[in-house]
């Protein structure tokens, strides 16, 4: 059940001077190892997941503690308290995870830590795997917690070490902000030495600092502001902020924006001085002021919000009022999606009237002439995925007349044709609470769907609230025994811990019953008729009812069967029985079933079929049969 992708042996065993090809996330995990961190926690989320999976894979052998926490808030609190007790700690999450953890995050900035702590937020410009592309650099501004950004895997590893030292000097955690193209870039990384790991701390009581009742909090806010001043002074003595090259044009950048900048100025053969900021809160005002005074024209390259630009503009007003600044406010760099070299090239070209040595327009025109005819290939639920079966059954049980709130996980893919079984989604856990709201203000049957890991993450408080407030809807908990979307991490319902040990297994049914849900039923989604009947009965009971649909993730199931040498027998269509009614194709959308134009019948791709049998159960002519040898 533990992520099979994590093969951290070389990352753990590698010694100083070794040069490895590492994913940005693996390089970060190596940095955490080199920094001698004693406690690491996470809730998995793309693009951060491999950091934690790598850390989990090394934990027991390396000798530090690692856990998959139930959610990001818990993860920050566990790691935060460890750092208060003088043990270096690390938390990683995706950008929206920091929304969940925002409460302890804000207060941690006030009370601070006594050993180094890093809170890593992996932002996802272009939303490759996310519901928004919020720019978490504003969390640093909001909290007063200093922030570090790196451009490539090597620098990310090195900055992790520097950030721990920095954190200890000001007794505050550091927000380490990455974006997808750092997390998911592979590059050569030279390893450094490892600090000894300490895991037994010393909690020295100081309630006047660590219990922020109003009288304490009032004092601590002043400390935050004082620390920010101190942090800026300290930043001049670090390696975080650097300049490259020289020229009359000045370019200010941070994170992966630096990569595109360097490539663009090379292609343009442009003489420019680049100020690369690694510490982006507090900003090095003296350094930036000198830089502004050295150049008449400034160009700012950053992904997402005009965070640097806003600060640089406000500083320029005082120290270099005549300097001309180009960036997002002038329309030279877009405020949405991830950047690339081309976007920076075009921005620089338009700001400084430079000719780009490549005809992008010609390529674009040619491409648009062919690309509109291509069949789309959106991500879909896998062949044999139990979610497909459950959604088919919910749809049938409610005569497709219900409202179907969804949640965050693979099952959100039920939004696709032909299922269309995702109607509303805000964030992790919102299926339960949106079902409550919608059932209050409509007379429709409401059936929400939530995954097992998401249920533990934020579904439980929402369910407590719904039962307490006497709401009326059905919640389907899709228990596929893993955190599938992010790479098959364990969760409280599995009972395997981040240390790869057997932990306590939290039984979903007992939790639901303990909350006070009276109508709880368990189904096997691969038994179609029984499941439809059970779901229909659940929707017809008063109050909150819960259907637990229990079947393992098809990817895990097939992999485990293969490992055990168990045979997987696919289904095939008997052509004489198939009448070409297309019910299987139009109602399931299983990637293993396809339509043969010439025979006008359905067929099965036996290399994909897992033998789940759902198609066989819904075929009106019984045309699907298990393949004989």
């Amino acid at each position, binding site marked *: 059940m533990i992520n099979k992708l994590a093969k951290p042996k070389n990352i753990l065993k590698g010694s100083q001077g070794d040069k490895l090809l590492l994913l940005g996330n693996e390089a970060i995990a190596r940095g955490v190892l080199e920094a001698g961190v004693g406690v690491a926690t996470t809730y998995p989320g793309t*693009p951060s997941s491999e950091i934690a999976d790598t850390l989990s894979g090394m934990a027991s052998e390396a000798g530090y503690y690692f856990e998959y926490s139930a959610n990001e808030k818990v993860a920050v609190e566990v790691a935060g308290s460890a750092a208060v007790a003088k043990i270096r700690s690390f938390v990683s999450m995706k950008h929206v995870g920091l929304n969940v953890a925002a409460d302890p995050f804000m207060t941690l900035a006030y009370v601070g830590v006594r050993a180094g702590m890093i809170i890593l937020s992996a932002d996802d410009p272009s939303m490759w795997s996310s519901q928004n592309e919020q720019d978490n650099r504003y969390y640093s501004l909001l909290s007063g917690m200093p922030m570090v950004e790196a451009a490539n895997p090597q620098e990310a590893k090195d900055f992790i070490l520097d950030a721990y030292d920095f954190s200890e000097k000001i007794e505050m955690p550091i927000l380490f902000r990455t974006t997808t193209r750092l997390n998911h870039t*592979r590059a050569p990384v030279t390893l450094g030495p490892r600090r000894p790991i300490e895991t037994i701390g010393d909690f020295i009581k100081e309630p006047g600092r660590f219990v922020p009742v109003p009288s304490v909090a009032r004092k601590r806010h002043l400390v935050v502001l004082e620390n920010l001043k101190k942090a800026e002074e300290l930043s001049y003595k670090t390696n975080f902020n650097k300049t490259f090259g020289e020229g009359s044009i000045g370019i200010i950048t941070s994170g992966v924006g*630096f990569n595109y900048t360097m490539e663009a100025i090379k292609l343009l053969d442009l003489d420019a001085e680049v100020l690369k900021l690694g510490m982006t809160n507090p900003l090095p005002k003296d350094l930036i002021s000198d830089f502004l005074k050295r150049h008449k024209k400034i160009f700012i390259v950053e992904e997402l919000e005009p965070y640097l630009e806003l600060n640089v503009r406000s500083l320029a007003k005082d120290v270099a009022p005549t300097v001309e600044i180009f960036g997002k406010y002038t329309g030279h760099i877009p405020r949405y999606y991830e950047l690339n070299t081309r976007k920076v090239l075009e921005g620089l070209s338009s700001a400084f009237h430079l000719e780009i040595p490549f005809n992008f327009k010609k390529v674009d025109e040619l491409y648009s002439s062919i690309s509109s005819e291509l069949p789309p290939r959106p991500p879909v639920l896998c062949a044999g995925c139990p979610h497909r079966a459950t959604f088919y059954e919910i749809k049938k049980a409610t005569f497709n007349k219900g409202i179907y709130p969804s949640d965050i996980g693979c099952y959100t893919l039920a939004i696709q044709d032909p299922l269309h079984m995702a109607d509303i989604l805000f964030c992790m856990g919102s299926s339960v609470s949106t079902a409550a709201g919608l059932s209050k203000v409509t007379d429709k049957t409401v059936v929400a769907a939530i995954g097992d890991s998401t249920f533990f993450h934020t579904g439980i408080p929402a369910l407590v609230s719904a039962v307490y407030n006497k709401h009326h809807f059905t919640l389907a908990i899709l228990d596929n025994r893993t955190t599938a979307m992010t790479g098959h991490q364990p969760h409280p319902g599995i009972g395997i811990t981040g240390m790869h040990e057997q932990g306590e297994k939290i039984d979903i049914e007992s939790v639901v019953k303990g909350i006070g849900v009276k109508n709880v039923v368990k189904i096997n989604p691969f038994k179609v008729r029984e499941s439809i009947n059970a779901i229909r009965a659940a929707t017809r009971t008063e109050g909150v009812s819960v259907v637990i649909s229990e079947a393992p993730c098809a990817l895990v199931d097939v992999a485990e069967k293969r490992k055990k040498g168990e045979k997987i027998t696919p289904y095939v269509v008997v052509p004489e029985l198939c009448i070409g009614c297309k019910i299987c194709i139009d109602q399931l959308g299983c990637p293993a079933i396809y339509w043969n134009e010439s025979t006008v019948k359905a067929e099965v791709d036996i290399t994909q079929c897992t033998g789940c049998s759902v198609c066989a159960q819904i075929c009106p002519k019984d045309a699907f049969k298990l393949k004989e040898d």
Partner: protein
Amino acid sequence: MEKYEISLVGVGGQGILTAAELLAKCAMLDGHNVRVGEIHGMAQRGGIVQSSVRIGKDVYGPIISEGMADLIIGFEPVEAMRGLSFASEKTIVLLNEHIVYPTVVSMGKAKYPDMDYIKSSIKKFTSKLYSFNAMDLALEAGAAITMNLVLLGAAFKIGNIGLNKESMESIITSTFPERFKKTNLKAFNLGYDYFK
């Protein structure tokens, strides 16, 4: 090497990320700087996979700009066509003719373009098109799963990548478990020997 950019395009499960990693390890062994770009998570579930390998001292980030690829390895015909955003007249395109139908096509809701149309579309961008069925050679090597190595072998022959074939063979040998070594090397060499 100043800069050599390879775009690998196809669908989930075709071994694209592995192929990209092998290329990058080979580049490192030959003493070059390298960046690999890949996308994980929701984008992967049966969907499109586009990975990039950028080699050379002028390389900082992982993303190939439109039209800038030196080589496109199309693991699947429609995805090779979709990957043409990276192509211009300088680009070499290696096309695997083995089709993986998108769900909309298998459901009969969209048409899959025919192979001649795909090839003529590629030729609008570049004359340097090499096409073959890598799956046939993978099966000849002994396993469908080695299709990515067949494509790597062919890419080494036609791509002018500037990496040593011996380096790649040693990377293949050291990356996979002993029992797959022979099949993988056979697949790589079947691909290498296909184009004269």
